[in-house]
């Protein structure tokens, strides 16, 4: 078991190293002069030369990569070209907004998606099932930004026009300052994120549950005289947890790397918004930092999901 875990950890490190090589060299071959980005359009050739020397850009790429890795291991991801702030600081400052969005979103989408999937599966083929399927289809085919604009219009703009404030248009308020205010500001982003993602979970739950309900051990549970609710929520849902957790792990990790569209629509200063700005500014250290952070989340999530498997499925112990 521990050996398996160490193996996975080693593999995760390999993935991160390959990712860093890929991103680093991608930017080296990409067009554009970082010194120009730092100094601005009016800088002279001598000034640019000076900046290149300061940033170490005149050294061979292997040396540059080596120094990047040795600093990164010590927690130093370099400095932004634009405002000379440490990249790590910039990212850490953005993490609370992104994490808040993801945590709330996960709770809402599970609370919507799973019950709809269960309802569909229990009444497969009936009107209730078709209702659930319609929800799934709409959710899957709606682009996130359209849904975002729509909810902004209906829940922010229309009430404002009528003279009251139902939900704010966006912005992030720190949780520790005022939890109620934090939640109030996040209601719209959460709902938008959840509605789009809940459809995927409703479909997954429906499919898995339909399969499990046909299993022999469900018949055994009914033959034991257990109530139907317990048959569904204890026996059947227990067996659908594994695929749900797999999907959830991947989704959370992906969103923690920055949810670009939703953060843009609602003006949340999260990791996704930072990435957008960095790309627009050609701020390479920040881009590399955000990419590595996303990679780290995904690799970690995979390890955690694998560990959860062994907890959830006694056959894998």
């Amino acid at each position: 078991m521990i050996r398996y875990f160490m193996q996975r950890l080693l593999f995760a490190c390999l993935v991160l190293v390959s990712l860093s090589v890929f991103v680093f060299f991608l930017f080296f071959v990409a067009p554009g002069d970082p010194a120009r980005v730092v100094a601005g359009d009016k800088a002279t050739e001598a000034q640019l030369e000076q900046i290149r020397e300061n940033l170490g850009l005149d050294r061979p790429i292997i040396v540059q990569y080596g120094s990047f890795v040795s600093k990164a291991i010590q927690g130093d991801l370099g400095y932004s070209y634009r405002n000379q702030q440490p990249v790590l600081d910039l990212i850490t400052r953005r993490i609370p907004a992104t994490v808040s969005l993801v945590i709330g979103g996960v709770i809402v989408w599970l609370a919507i998606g799973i019950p709809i999937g269960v309802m569909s599966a229990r009444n497969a083929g009936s009107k209730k099932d078709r209702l659930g399927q319609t929800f799934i289809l709409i959710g899957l085919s709606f682009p996130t930004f359209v849904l975002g604009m729509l909810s902004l219009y209906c829940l922010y703009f229309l009430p404002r026009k009528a003279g009251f404030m139902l939900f704010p248009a966006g912005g992030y308020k720190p949780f520790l300052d005022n939890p109620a205010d934090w939640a109030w500001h996040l209601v719209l982003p959460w709902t938008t994120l959840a509605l789009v993602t809940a459809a995927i979970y409703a479909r997954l739950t429906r499919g898995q549950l339909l399969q499990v309900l046909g299993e022999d051990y469900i018949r055994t549970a009914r033959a034991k005289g257990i109530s139907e609710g317990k048959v569904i929520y204890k026996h059947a849902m227990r067996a659908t947890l594994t695929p749900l957790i797999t999907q959830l792990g991947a989704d959370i990790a992906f969103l923690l790397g920055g949810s670009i569209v939703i953060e843009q629509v609602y003006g949340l200063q999260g990791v996704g918004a930072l990435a957008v700005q960095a790309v627009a500014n050609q701020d390479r250290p920040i881009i590399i930092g955000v990419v590595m952070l996303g990679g780290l989340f995904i690799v970690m999530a995979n390890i955690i999901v694998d560990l959860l498997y062994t907890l959830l499925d006694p056959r894998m112990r």
Partner: protein
Amino acid sequence: MPLIEAHNVTIRIPTEDGVIYAANSISFSVEAGEVFGIAGESGSGKSVLMQAITGLLPGAEITGEVLFQGQDLLKMSQKELQDLRGSHIGMVFQDPLSSLHPYFTIGSQITEMIHTHRKISAEEARALTVDMLEKVGIEDAESRFDDYPHQFSGGMRQRVMIAMALVLHPPLIIADEPTTALDVTVQVQIMDLLDEMRRTFGTTVIMITHDLGLLANIADHAMVMYAGTRLEIGATESLFSNPAHPYTLGLLKSSPSSQETGGKSLEPIQGNPPSLLDRPRACIFAERCPQVQNQCRSARPPLQKYDDGAEALCHFSAHDTQAMTVDTGLQKSASKRPIVVDVQDVRLTFHAKSMFGKKRSTEVLKGINLQIHKGETFGLVGESGCGKSTLARVIAGLIPASAGEVTLDGVPILSVTGQRWRQMRRHVQLVFQDPVGSLNPRRRIGAIIGDPFRIHDVAHGAEQKKKVQELMEMVGLNPEHYNRFPSEFSGGQRQRIGIARALALKPSLIIFDEPVSALDVSIQAQILNLMQELQRDLNLTYLFISHDLSVVRHVCDKIAVMDAGQIVELNQSDKLFAEPTHPFTRKLLDAIQDPPPLQESSARKLVETEPAAAVFDGAVMEASL
């Protein structure tokens, strides 16, 4: 007073394809303390009947009356039935691995049922469970309480299921094919356990099975179902030694018996069971009945009642139910014929590797020696996991052996590679167990059977089609069905497709890996007969793998018994059955349960003939609406 009494139970299940007529006016009664058997082939409605009356099929429409301890089950609400299940009616299902929840410990699965029906503390429930687990023969029950189902063997899992069904001492247990998924020696243990528990607790058992031999040996009364209809009911002894219905007789004649010697061909019931989507009219068995008359196709049969309590749904009385035994006179001489396959000291070891772990190795075949002569059928028997299928794959050249040599028609095959290997593949063909899983559902059968011609560049286009159609005719398929998909064929027909494909290249050896174990007994007999006909006409050589000794004895000239990767006994089939020398062979033989031999003439008297209208009560009522 009977514990359970069913009157005219009719079950309709509405589906997308139409209404399934799953049970038609079924009546039976079970006395307290007896074992009541329900026999029938798959699709006969035997499981559906029991699940429907206990409320496990909420989609079914049921009419009639089922009195259990004086109360009508069919009038009960879902909640009342739910309270009855587990506490008053225990159930044991076929496959103990899939019937136990893989994510919960066996202890918690049993205590959950206790807590559902009784208000007692967790400690008391645990004590009750451990006590019951010990009674059903789980050793060290206290410590195994927290183990998961996958940590038990098949037989042990079925013991756990039985403990679960019995823990609340229900007056009735419904056992639905409780031993079908188990090895033959384990089957005997489980049946003994059920019988012992029945005596200890006075439980009544309803046993659903397709295995007539099993039923004949344990049940007091039994009914035979076919396409949702009860064709015969009566005391087991007379039912099986002296059947009153042609279907029961047909079933018995198509079962290979371990008492019989090979060479005599079985008498299959021709045709396939009818679709349950058609409303039953006339006699439901008429299409397959050997003694069918005009009235069978036009009128519903009356119920014939006999003096010994037996009842049969037939236009004729038991005296007419006679059939002749066909003896094909096929007796193979054990003369010296050329050796087709020679297996010399074949060994196979699997190595399990992991990145950091130690190498583990498992010896699957431990020095196998055997010879198969031209034109003979060589049987390979053993329990699951003994290595018989692995040996077959080595002989077919699909798995390389670790040591030893296999020669086919004098040519060593284990060392060949490349083009020579492809050449060799022509000479050994396989037919597999599962006729559904082994045919690609998206390819037409013409293409499936024609594959060997294409792969080995034998014939193309019109010539290939002609050859395929000849093969189809040879195995009893309609050549016009050339363009159909496998799903359009029944299980028995699919196995014919598999045989046609195997025959295509005129192989030196055909390996049959459990070719009939997925088929119903009446269909099984058709396939076994086809195999024997083809062997006689084409002088084929067979390697026949099976766990079913009766089938093996019926078709094989020589039998090798395998246990744990070794051949423990090898002899002519009749000698092996007459004088088994190895203890494992004896154990296997002791586990066989045969129905009693058929008696010459009927000793019973017909006492009453109840006209059809009363019998098909439900159907008549519907028709008049």
